[in-house]
């Protein structure tokens, strides 16, 4: 194979040696390979310094993000932070004033609409048209064949256990079932890039699990998913990378685990049998809450945790001790809610 490559690319021997060395390095450093793949080769959707200015305000201010094939990227932010505008730009509805959006390395063209799927936050289908009619119509509008769309539709309906809705009008369905149909509408044409705006809002826990499973399967099937929600637990479960927007700017961006590790651990869970006194005397303790299992203590510096444990062990048997990493929810509130606490 190497010989073949050599011939094909007409590399000189020196180059060949360099090539072999790099090749070996890559094989040995599997993690490195996967990193390379992730950040350079397989990026499907890339926003580069994207800015959108509306007349009296900046809706999106120099946003960067990239989503790989088979990744769910979380786009978080308070209401009005610029999420919808960002998504609309990705969908090609409005054009950025600055920066660029690349799809598989190329700029937006009209043909791309067949590869994009969109689940808008404001749900909407034709209320008086049959489910099959309008979903096949929407698939055809995306340039998908009617026959294949029909097959996909039946598969999806079966998966969501609602096959009997094929011939029903949308207005006859319950809200939760309309959501399922809406979801199918966004994926019926096998999109490569899927944009989900508040995908699970208004669903009961059982259906949330159902749709979450579907989203995960799509991810594993290689779909690139841009995911926006206010439900942090969904983000923690589904996404590996996130961006948090606040007032049109990116305030936090990156891998969830890394983000979490950069935020100090500020919560201590302490399971004890007896009452313990004297927490307040430890430096770094902010507040103490009595719980059924013992105490939950907020601290301002991690070192205080060890002092707490010592104190507790002096006075009682410790059944549980944990220094919790911050939840995404806490991070979000800290970053977005607290003024200038970046």
């Amino acid at each position, binding site marked *: 194979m190497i010989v073949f490559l050599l011939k094909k690319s007409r590399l000189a021997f020196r180059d060949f040696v360099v090539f072999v060395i790099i090749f070996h390095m890559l094989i040995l450093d599997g993690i490195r390979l996967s990193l390379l793949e992730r950040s350079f080769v397989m990026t499907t959707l890339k926003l580069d310094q994207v800015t959108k200015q509306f007349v009296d305000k900046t809706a999106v201010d120099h946003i960067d993000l990239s989503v790989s094939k088979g990744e769910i990227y979380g786009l978080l932010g308070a209401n009005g932070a610029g999420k919808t505008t960002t998504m609309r730009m990705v969908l090609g509805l409005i054009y950025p004033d600055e920066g660029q959006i690349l799809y598989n390395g190329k700029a937006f063209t009209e043909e791309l609409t067949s590869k994009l799927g969109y689940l808008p936050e404001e749900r*909407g289908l034709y209320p008086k048209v049959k489910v099959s*009619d309008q979903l096949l119509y929407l698939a055809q509008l995306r340039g998908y064949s009617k026959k294949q769309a029909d097959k996909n539709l039946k598969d999806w309906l079966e998966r969501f256990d609602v096959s009997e809705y094929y011939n029903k009008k949308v207005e006859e369905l319950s809200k939760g079932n309309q959501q399922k149909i809406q979801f199918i509408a966004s994926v019926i044409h096998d999109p490569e890039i899927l944009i989900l705006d508040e995908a699970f809002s208004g669903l009961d826990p059982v259906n949330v699990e159902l749709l979450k499973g579907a989203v995960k399967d799509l991810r594993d099937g290689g779909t690139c998913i841009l995911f926006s929600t206010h439900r942090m637990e969904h983000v923690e479960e589904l996404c590996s990378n996130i961006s948090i927007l606040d007032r049109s700017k990116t305030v936090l961006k990156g891998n969830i685990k890394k983000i979490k590790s950069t935020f100090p651990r500020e919560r201590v869970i302490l399971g004890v049998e007896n009452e313990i006194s004297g927490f307040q005397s430890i430096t770094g303790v902010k507040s103490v809450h009595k719980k059924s299992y013992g105490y939950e203590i907020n601290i301002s510096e991690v070192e205080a945790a060890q002092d707490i444990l010592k104190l507790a062990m002096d006075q009682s048997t410790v059944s549980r001790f944990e220094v919790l990493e911050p939840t995404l929810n806490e991070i979000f509130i800290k970053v977005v809610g607290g003024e200038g606490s970046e």
Partner: protein
Amino acid sequence: MNKLLTVAGFTIRNKLKTKAFIITTLIIALILCIGLNIPYIITLFSSDEPTKIGFLEDNSGIAESVDQYFQKQEDTDVEIVLFGDKDTVKENEQMAMNKLDAGEIEGYLQLKNEEVDGFPVVVYTSQTSLRFNLQNQLQNVFKLLKTDIVAKELGLSSEEQNILLSPVSFESVELSDTDTAQGGKQIEEKNETEEALSLFISYAVIILLFMGIMISGQLIATEITTEKSSRVMEILVTSVPSLTQMFGKIIGMFIVSVSQILIFVAVLVVNILLPHNAEVMQQINLDMSNVDMTMILPIIIYSILLYFMGFLLYSTLFAAIGSIVSRTEDLGQAIMPMTFISLAGFYIAIFSISMPDSALVVWSSFIPFFTPFVMTLRIGLGEPALWEIWLSLGILLATILGGGWLSAKIYRTGVLMYGKRPSIKELRKAMKAFKV
């Protein structure tokens, strides 16, 4: 192109399936059927029984003359029943009253003893009021008789009398220029049937265009607003370029509207061709074999062209309006200006149908919003020069392109704007922001 057809197809299918559409089409077709058969139905009920009118004879001989006159007449529904003189006035009246009560006669005539200008005063007695056309007929007869009597008294010969009575011959000739392109101005005349036919076509096209614009235009606007308010628009605009979407919808609606018209035309033609109606048609002097198609064909072609262009102009604007409104409740108010403009065009055309060359008509035929209505009228009934036709069509086409372009821009912007209806200023700002 493919997506355009998909959108058009979806629009057509959904429209044809709605109950409202099916029911309206059926009702109008039914009304057409009934309307077209009304002349025949009237002949069924009326022609058999003539109106019987009694006449009390006296020795003047007038009663006999009237009776003879009506007997000679072919297309009259009046029959005179002569009553013999029973000596006294009272007895005579009694007898006539009896017959009136028995329903044998509708009324009776009686000559009074007093005379005005050498003719006895005629009295008509009946239980119901005198029908207008009956009174006309009777008056005419008596007038003739009087002329006759007076002429005899004056000693005029029957020839002299004819000269006096013969009507002034009056002919109406309508000129139309065709083939001006071939150099020499060749003037052809439309015969009566052709005139009637072009009147009919003009009328029909103007009414159909107005209906088509109002109904389809409103439907287009409503559908777009519904798509917007039900938020399915969000998905649509991300799937299809908005221009494709808008024109797909317009084409779909056009096909629906034209096929509806074709149904009505078919109903019309079938009804006219029914054997019992052929007779009626002949009676009102509409002989189709009499028609020179080269006279009528340009009218039909121009009418179709104008219909198409008018539809396009109005529906693009209706689409634009539909796109800026977020809730169907607000739509009625928003399309009001368009309704008024089309109403104005419609009424200018309809009220000028008897004077197709008036200044109002000529000038308004160059105003693009009125052209489809008014030019149809002018081509059908007036005599516009060829350059006038093409000039107005040119202006109309330019307006369609300009309006279509503007509508597409508004549409592109409007579909993304929710909340209250944007003002023109807000719309312009948004257009700039969205870079459309």
